[in-house]
């Protein structure tokens, strides 16, 4: 076990954990941030996506020690039901959810995309989300929600 310092959603946090632990389990179990979801432990589905220093990463395969110096943003860091981020609000407006288990990954991948490219084309959005799986088939609405959040006509 080791004491590890992290910066999560703008706050300094200290956890006492096995240094091999993937970031996902630290966020969920030690910090009670339920936004990032466990999906595969293989970086194949995107459900666990968080943003570290502006980049969307898969927290299920990222050891917690690898992000000690980074600024970590989770879904909770974007907004709450009382004060939603424009991406979250766009997903409400488009009703772009069915079960919602993958949605953390969709929003965090989209956030990283829009931060780097504020007005992406449809195919750029598709490419940016191609590593995020959705079983319910909400893809069309998710694409519209991301486009809406970017201020473009849907």
């Amino acid at each position, binding site marked *: 076990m080791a004491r590890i310092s992290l910066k999560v959603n703008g706050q300094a946090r200290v956890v006492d954990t096995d240094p091999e632990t993937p970031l996902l389990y630290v966020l969920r179990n030690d910090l009670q941030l*339920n936004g990032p979801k*466990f999906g595969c432990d293989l970086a*194949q589905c995107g459900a666990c996506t968080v943003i570290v220093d502006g980049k969307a990463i898969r927290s299920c395969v990222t050891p917690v020690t690898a992000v000690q110096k980074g600024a970590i943003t989770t879904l909770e860091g974007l907004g709450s*039901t009382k004060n939603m981020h424009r991406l979250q609000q766009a997903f409400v407006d488009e009703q772009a959810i069915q079960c919602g288990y993958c949605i953390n990954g969709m*929003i965090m991948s989209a956030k990283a995309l829009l931060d780097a490219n504020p007005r992406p084309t449809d195919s750029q959005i*598709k490419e940016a989300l191609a590593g995020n799986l959705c*079983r*319910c*088939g909400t893809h069309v609405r998710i694409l519209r929600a991301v486009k809406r959040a970017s201020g473009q006509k849907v």
Partner: protein
Amino acid sequence: MKMKTVELSRRQFLKGAGALVVSFNLFPPSRGVFAAQFTTLPSGDIDPQSLDSWLAISPDGSVTFYTSKVEIGTGTITALAQIMAEELDVPFDRVKMVYGDTSQTIEQGSTVGSRSIERAGPQLRQAAAAARQELLKLAATRLGAPVERLAVQNGVISVTGDATKKVSYGELIGGKRFNAKITATGSGNDLKVAPEVKAKNPKDYKIVGQPIKRMELPGKLTGEHIYAHDVRVPGMLHGRVVRPPVVNTEPLSIDPDSIRHIPSVMMIVREGKFVGVVAETEWAAIKAARALKVTWSQPTTKMPANSDELFAYLKNTKPTRTLKPVDKGNLAEAFTKAKKSYQASYRWPFQMHGMIGPSCSVADVKGDQATVWSGPQGPFRTRATVAAILKIPEKNVRVIYHEASGSYGRMSTDDCAEDAALLSRAVGAPVRVQWSRRDEHGWEPKGPAQLDEVKAAIGDDGKLVAWDFVDYGQPWTASGSTPLLASLQVGIAPNNPGGSNGTQSAGEIYAVPNQKIVAEHINWHFPEPIPLRTSNLRAPGDPARCFASECFIDEIAADLRVDPVEFRQRHLAENKRGSECLKAAADKAQWEKRPSPQPPSSGNIAKGRGVAVTQRANAYAAAVAEIEMNKSTGKVVVKRIVCSHDCGLIVNPDGVSNQIEGNVIQGVSRALFEEVTFDANGVTSLDWKSYPILKFTDVPEIEIVLINRPEMPALGAGEPSIIPVPAAIANAIFDATGARLREAPFTPQRVLAAMKAVGQKS
């Protein structure tokens, strides 16, 4: 077999293990802010004849409805809330739903088969109508006016013609019990609630029929919604199950030294063939489950080693049951006299539910009582299976529902709740079990393979005179209350031969004078559990049967050089809704009337269009698919799907559209990409690389035609529209190339082989 546990270390784990995020009163259930308490029956169930079991009104006039139907991501709970708010005349935003808690809700059957709106809708509507009637009686006394002179608006009852005389629901009964009896007979889906109470005329609906936004959706977007995976209870430990590598093997030995080096691991649990580990932290449990050295016995039996062996097994094994939903006329005579006969067979592979979030449950077993937090489609089924594996009475088990990942039938089989119960009992503390991706892909019960053989004949008038359809499929042996994975491993024997994989979408929509449809149930004759367990997968059996029947119809139309829509319509004259649904899709797609296939194209990219239609559980769906395919690689791209849909009265048009979009996309995915691979030992599709599903870059344009029938009962929309999609795509491939796909999924390899079979150069 007696439970054997090996303790590695025991710390003071109950002290300060993790922060509390959600906490619940375990027993007995309480109704929080409401003064009302449930009336429970000797079985421990809530009394359906008590109006207070269905709803409670708080002093501020907000209303809480109780239902055992659950939100599985399809919008069912929002739609049920609309139905009840409508009937009670309260604003939608004053409605709260409590669902899926076995100690707070009445068993209304599992949330399966697109039947929740159809079955639970009327139950809840009538309960709300009965409550409204009671409220009117109370108001009549309070306001000194007869019920006939009272009107209700937004939860306020007033005297017609005297606006000063009014009283709100909250003032009338807020925080108090109705103490009223209503009639309720039957059980589960067949429960009949207060049928004598007159409900509203659908033409007066203001809330039903509106595209109201989903109730639970904002919390899902911010991490505030508590999924089953997010439940944490005080003192909770983390468990993982170690599954056998092959069919029904048992652990011969377990080496504790293999995991002794991992800190915080607390226990290895073995019970019969079931093996699990428990640790203080999730990561330690994962590491321990991966590292634990178990020597497994050699399996006594090998499964079919590949898909050819599987389909031979389906064809050559004696059925355990034969269903004959349609059997009319004289087929033998019709075939003899016919102008021309046809026959073909079609194969459908094992496919996965493929939940993005693998199974997860928390159980807390204390003596002969258990509380389970899980995401089953049937909470009462989980109550029964957990009680059975723990050998305790059902009324001693409380299942508290939290949504799982979109499950499409997977959570009819709540395996993980049993795992958590066994581990919790062994360790004496609450245990959370999370299946790994490998566990889920390898051991989820799957949608079974199907072999469909069809024969048909044409008369002199160019119409079908004979239709002979045989579906060789597997019943679901891992669904509902049949013993689940851990049960089988601890030695609880299977208690039935499995549920039916359905019989619809086999051509019964068409009027054919001599017609037979048969579904043969072919069970596995291997010791349980086997990795290719079978269960209900969205629209069970229908996409495969529709693929066979609707492609076969297409083959005949092509042989006769008749337009595929026109040929179908010839046989739909007696099925008005089916005919209109097909026409709606064709019109929206601007279907060009001509036979398939179209003349060969010169370039490397061929384009085609195809159609299919189906009827299921009195709902209809038709799809037109437009595809492009690369003739040299065989890769098919679905460009556009137009889907028409008739599910009777539409409760929430946006909810129905969302379901149709999801069905279409899942249908494209299952048609193009999805096939469980296996060898004689087990499943080999153990991750998303070996079992790919549709990605954003494969998404087609989707256009929907909603056919609303307010005069009809509301039917489910969760399944019908996936059914015609694979058939429409296969027919579009035929239209583009003349190549006929008779096995799904339509991989480049299969497309190239089909092109070769008809002499097309790739």
